[in-house]
């Protein structure tokens, strides 16, 4: 079943001086897939994710999420769509500082007006899965980056979304925490079957995906599938990236 279908997506910014961020992108993602999007800086990968996220309408082309074009919904319905069908994980976590970790996680359910008992049940489930049960009553400034990102993931999946979207989820983490987070993404994808789309800079993180799509200068460039070995896949990704013309510095810059 197709969860996401992009047809001839283009995005042009600016009025007088036009800059084309995306040109004629076509993409189909099946249910349960874990897809990475890679490309050099300025290639348009975050723009692509924003278009999929329903927060940045494309200049032309059509986005179909579960067979429905979200940009044709009116704003309150669009909010409901995001609330129930999508989950988001960001590079800088974007947790609400005034809430505890637990409250941050149940926020999507709160917005949807669920029963408090349902919230508690789901919170326990998801916290257990992400191994953050013991920090639920803490505040955002009391936890580490890795814990913050796990909280964000918990918040993104507590309502069992159709599609999980992640923008550089490991970008602000050290390599140990980054690895933990990616293992979690893989595990969640495997266990719950949630379709996941992740934008990343980092070949190591990308190597956890089933499939990696490369874009360059706003155009589709290449796509590779993971076989049995993650190590081999990692090497393949590195090869494509060097062909892509991204300099070696550009790749490691993420680990500053």
């Amino acid at each position, binding site marked *: 079943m197709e969860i996401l279908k992009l047809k001839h997506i283009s995005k042009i910014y600016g009025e007088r001086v036009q800059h084309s961020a995306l040109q004629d992108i076509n993409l189909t993602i099946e249910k349960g897939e874990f897809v990475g999007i890679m490309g050099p800086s300025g290639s348009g990968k975050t723009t692509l994710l*924003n278009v999929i*996220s329903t*927060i*940045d309408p494309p200049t032309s082309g059509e986005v179909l999420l579960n067979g429905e074009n979200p940009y044709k919904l009116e*704003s*309150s319905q669009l*909010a*409901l*769509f*995001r*609330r*129930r069908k*999508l989950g*988001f994980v960001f590079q800088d976590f*974007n*947790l*609400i*500082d*005034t*809430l505890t970790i*637990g*409250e941050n996680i*149940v*926020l*999507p359910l*709160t*917005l*949807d*007006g669920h029963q*408090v008992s349902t*919230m508690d049940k789901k919170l326990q489930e998801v916290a257990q899965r992400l191994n953050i049960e013991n920090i639920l009553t803490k*505040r955002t400034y009391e936890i580490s980056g890795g814990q913050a990102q796990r909280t964000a993931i918990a*918040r993104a999946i507590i309502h069992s979304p159709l599609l999980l979207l992640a923008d550089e989820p490991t970008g602000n983490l050290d390599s140990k925490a980054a690895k933990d987070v990616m293992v979690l993404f893989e595990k969640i994808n495997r266990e719950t079957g949630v379709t996941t789309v992740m934008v990343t800079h980092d070949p190591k993180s990308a190597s956890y995906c089933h499939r990696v799509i490369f874009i360059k200068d706003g155009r589709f460039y290449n796509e590779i599938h993971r076989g049995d070995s993650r190590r081999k896949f990692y090497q393949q990704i590195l090869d494509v990236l060097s062909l892509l013309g991204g300099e070696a510095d550009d790749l490691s810059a993420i680990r500053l």
Partner: protein
Amino acid sequence: MTFRQFAFNNVKRNTRVYLAYFLSSVFTIMVFFSFAVNLFHPVIASRRGGAIELILGQTEVAILVFSVLFVFISVNAFLKVRSKEFGILLILGMSPKQLRRLVFLENMLIGCVAIIVGITIGLVFSKLFLMLLSSLLSYGSLSFYFPVKAILLTAGVFILIFLGISAITPRIIRTNSIITLLKGVKKANREIKFSIIQSLAALLLLGSGYFMALSPKLYDLNPFLDRVVLFIERLPYTEVILTTFVVIGTYLFFSQLSILVLHRLKENKKFYLKKTNMLWVSDLIYRIRDNTRMLFLVTVLSAVAFTAITGVYALSSVVKDESLKDNPFALTFTSYSSNAHEEEQIKIIEEMLDSHGFKYEKYKSEVIKQTAKDNQPIHIIKQSDYNNRAAALGLEQEVLDKDQALMVPVYVRFDPKRDKTLSQKNIALDNGEINLEVAGVAPKVIFYSGLFRNLVVVSDETYEKIKNIQEKYHSYSYDIPDWLNTLEVTEKLREELGVGEPGRYYWSTRIEGYILENQNKKIFLYVGFFLGAIFFLGAGSFLYFRLYTDLNQEKDKYIGLAKIGLSFQEMKRVAGIQIAVLFFVPYILASIHTYFAIAVLQTVLYSSVLKQFFVVIGAFLMLNIIYYFSVRSRYLNYLKGFTVR
């Protein structure tokens, strides 16, 4: 966690952001409530329609208008600080309607708590305010009462304000652009432009506004200037034009002129590239541009506050001088020729003064009234009577020829060159049979302000020749050194003589005018002080909110600078200069505005109020300095926490 709990937690755990807003709301509500307690006090309410009720009522309205403005601006500032948070919530699927509800709930929560706290503190202080008011009004004592009406009015009005503003402001959030909200207000890389023409316009508008304010003082210096001054005088609504000029000029000052000045500083490489100058100058350009409206508002509010306070302070402190000038004698009794009891009445007055142990000097004058060709009354006094009074008032003795006359002003404020009657060159008496040349103008009122319009002094010889006598007054003035204690005597005399009889006699005292003026002006002082205080506090809060809004952005910048080796001392300097500019430039500009506003006020007062101006400005400078240092230290402490790692 339900939605309502979510809103509640948001406020409860975000006290730092909300504290300034909350406290200022509490203060505003408290002041409003205290005035309502005064207004609805049984004693004051029983004198419905009186001047005091009117003044207090209008003050209440002014506080109300300010409160609306204040709450509105504060709420807007908060929404701006929290744009990223709103972006996150929207991306998580909060509908625009839910977001509006969240902001609404938060506002109502803060509003309700502020109303309860404000009224409670107001109740605690209300006894004090009532005592203050009753001592000002000499009403004996205004007893404490439980102000049900005031509580209901305050709660009702502020619930409406918070409801209205909570309902309107969330609509300002641009819920359709999540990306902009998420990225926040990071647009420091745009180029800041300014217009030289508009900068010049700022100078021109401020200059001409100030000139118009000063123009009455500039008369008679230079013929060309005189024509300009007369032109300004003929303009309708001069005050409105003047105020508009200064207000627009102030706006352009912040939006254009200040940017121009900073750009000039930037071009001066020696200055710009020296140590930390580059940092604060370049940053300040963005800050001023981002805060133009706020700086403008703070300046205007401060100017209004300073002017109100200087005005009332000046009025109340010059009241004695003014009474002295209005009534050069402590008591003046004037009798018509038809008054048969003149001598008895004079006896009553003098016996009463004697029996109370007052020492006095009596000055008796005779004044003839006749009507000139243009139907204007002319009053004539002879030289010896005039000199008699002049001696008492410390004026020069006059010696007039038989064809000379001296004009005497009837009001305290007069301009001999522009006053129609005083500037006459010749005077015709007895329908043109006696023609006199005007030799000069007396420097002062010699009876009391308003008595004997068109008063002319002639030589005793000429006086005897006057035939056309419509009325001959006898006027007795008493100089009583201890006049401040004459209230009791005056009241007793009023019982005997009343206020006078039309066409027979009337009398006026200095002490009554003094008491009346004094009371009115004390109320003005009371009211003006409160208005000024809340306006100034409001202005300070706007600055504080604004600094807080920018803090997150600043934090990132300073972390970056600390990494490349900016010491905390240097950071302190950079931030200190910037905060100082934001705090003191509006203060200085507002002080200058006030100086010129006071110059306008000066034209209706007789005494100089420059001293009062400096006292008020100085007091506010102290307040501003305290405010500045406390805000700066909080600000720096916050930055320190992030940078020294």
